[in-house]
């Protein structure tokens, strides 16, 4: 009886250790151990063979960039789609995957990351604590509102700026000095 209890306890401890190991191990997804496939519903599925040769099929995976700004193509975390979904593995470099896979992953990244880039600033008007922006982005024309003060327009590296609007959307200005002098003057007040 006592023994049985001890065995159970060991079991649980072993289980826990496995969970921890699972969390901390780095698994790389390569062209060889994975098959990505478009699903009918507009997502991507994955059949992954892990280090022990075990095959597992995921009907939908979601992809996260580890370095969305500084190194967008490398270290793509492929995860189960739910909010606290596990990481299935990392794609070390998207450019080392087959063209077909790369395309699929890029599509999914596009779906996950909504990051319009401001191409042209038509006007910025400020009124009572908020500034109202009218811009053209690579995703089309758009108007949005930014709270004044605080750090809603901020720099992430040389001449590269992000703008957060009051809804939580984020717009990117990749290079301030690629804008016209008039546009820079409009922006001057906020950066």
């Amino acid at each position: 009886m006592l023994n049985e209890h001890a065995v159970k306890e060991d079991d649980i401890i072993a289980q826990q250790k496995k969970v921890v190991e699972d969390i901390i191990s780095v698994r790389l997804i390569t062209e060889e151990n994975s098959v990505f496939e478009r699903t009918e519903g507009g997502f991507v599925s994955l059949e992954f063979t892990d280090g022990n040769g075990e095959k597992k099929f995921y009907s939908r995976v979601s992809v996260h960039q580890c370095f969305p700004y500084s190194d967008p193509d490398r270290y793509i975390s492929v995860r189960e789609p739910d909010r606290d979904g596990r990481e299935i593995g990392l794609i070390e470099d998207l450019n080392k995957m087959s063209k077909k896979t790369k395309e699929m992953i890029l599509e999914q990244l596009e779906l996950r990351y909504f990051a319009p880039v401001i191409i042209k600033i038509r006007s910025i008007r400020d009124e009572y604590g908020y500034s109202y922006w009218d811009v053209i982005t690579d995703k089309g024309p758009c108007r949005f509102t930014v709270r004044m003060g605080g750090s809603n327009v901020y720099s992430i590296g040389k001449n590269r700026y992000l703008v957060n609007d009051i809804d939580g959307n984020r717009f990117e200005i990749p290079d301030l000095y690629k804008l016209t002098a008039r546009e820079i003057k409009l922006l001057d007040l906020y950066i």
Partner: protein
Amino acid sequence: MNLCYTLPDELFEKVRPVLKGEKIIYCLPLDLNLNGEFTKFGWTVVTRRRLVVISDDQIGEIIELSEADEIICSHEVNGGILIARQDGSDRLLARFSMRYLTQYSYVARGATLFCRGDSRVLENQEREKYCPKCGKVLPGTQGCPRCAKSGRMFRRFLELCGSYAIRLSAITILMAATSAITVSQQYVNRRFIDNVLVPATGTLGEISAFFFTMLLLTGAALALTAFNTIWSNSLGTRISRDLRARVYAKINQLSLEFISSRQAGELMNRVVHDTSHIRAFMEHAFAQMFTRIFIMAGALIAMVTMNFKLALLTLAFAPAAFALIRAFRRMERRLWRQQWRFDDKVNNRLQDVISGIRVVKSFGQEKRETERFESYVDRMTHIQKRNELFWATLYPFITLIITSGTFLIYYLGGRDVLNDRMTPGQLIQFIAYANMLYMPLQFVSRLPRMIMRLKTSIERINDILDEEPKIADSPDAVDIEIKGDVEFKNITFGYKSYQPVLENINLSVRKGEMIGLVGSSGTGKSTMINLLMRLYDPDEGSILIDGVPITAISKNSLHRQIGVVLQETYLFSGTLLENIRYANPDASRIEVIRAAKIANAHDFITHFPNGYDTYVGEHGYTLSGGERQRIAIARAILHNPRIIILDEATSSLDTETEYQIQEALERLIAGRTTFAIAHRLSTLRKVDRIVVLDNHRIAEVGSHNELMRKKGIYYKMVMAQLEMHSVRK
């Protein structure tokens, strides 16, 4: 927030055949297409039977809700997607930006209810962010200060001013009097020049008569102005004091639901800043507004009657001067704002480094931080210098341009005097009036902004004053003497109606029993406690204390008899004595000492140099976590509650302190019904029954030994904890 927008007519005609006459329950716009591009708005339409997506004016996906398992709104990075889950596979339906995320998450939950045959319709109580009329951002209020009619705002302002309305009108009349004097002074001036000085026939007696008239008028104007200023200021202070008290009282009264839907800082702003905006308006704008406007009007009338042509000429300059002032002000604001922003940056940097000074030092980064800070300061100096230079050169120049209108009067008016069309006195009077007209222009150009700020503040204050407290005592609420039996009956509750945190909770607790609540974070332990304290009312079911529903017990008598020892003990700024007496200010000193002794706090308190008079809280003496907890226990003992709620700290303390706290707690809870959110095994072993919450429901109930034998969730938790300890050792 609106969950059911009105579909444009022509689109409604298009979807009508698909809907087959069903009523539209939810309808939201889509601002993105599936490629993530801003396009012409699409729509998502939900009836009880189906979900239809319209994009580019075409009907896209149609989902029969009875065939779907779930509709999911997934929060992606800076955007969201709508998914239908059908037989375990996901289908992408639509894409939207963050603007509609909250609304879509409600609609997805609502549609999922329909999938499961539940016909309830969800509502979202959150405020709209944008004014549906003008599209501008709302300052966290229900009404839009921009769209609100000025008349209504003025009425609300008078309402806020309350009993001071009479004094307000008195001040206005006084201001009119001041203005009349100021204008008439120039008339006396003219008489003096024309009748006494120019003909050179005046006597000394006449001169002294004028002297005394002028003295009297000036003195009267000064006295009235001083009086006005004092009155407006004291009135402003009083009104803002009253408002502060009212807003603060209201915030205390409102349910946590209202308060937690707003940031603490925002509510503080309403109490402090918005009320002081009103005061500032009273002091700076109101006191001067009428005087200046009256003076301008008086001067204008006098000018027109004196010399129509010259008056027109002077006026012609006014719009130009006004436009110039406005342009100048915009430039001024721009420069200032740049400077402020930089000030902010420097301050933040400073605060950051000073707060993190240990890290900076321990990594030896002092030099780098100093250099970085210096570069900030250099840039700030540069901006400041530039701004100062700008003021110094531009300001006099602007004043010159604005007043150049009056120079023209010198010329044209001077000609009229020479041609005998005007007397010298009239010219001097006229020039004085022209100045009266031009000088307040700067002030007038600031008025719209000041009024808008006032309107916003009024709106934000009223927003709180108009709110009805959700959890109010029913008129027949009774005071009861609580014995300690507690029953949770079919309780279902969620902070957001679509997301239940507790589902169908049933638990009956006997008087004097100690219940341990366990479960991983987010399973609803604290929520059960919040409901018991009636900080929120459950969506379904009821809580009974001694057989009486808590909704029928007066809040006062309920809270008086429930004691709380929270995980993070909050000590208010004040002495230890005040803090221990917080719930029971009338307790005698010996009672306080007795409570502190029971709480194992007396000894460490008497070791402080200032004993019970030690000042704690902000800017005060810092107590350790263990000490704070014991103060909280003493507070609860003095409170002498019938039901005790204990939220045990997760962080572990040293064994000695831990032992003292345990001991104090045991004394506190003896004979009282206790609910403990427990993390420590030592606590859990002592409780009568353990309630394990899992997935928002009660999963297991029983004593420690029973649950260990059962080898369920609790057993696993205990084992995991033991394992953690053995790893640490």
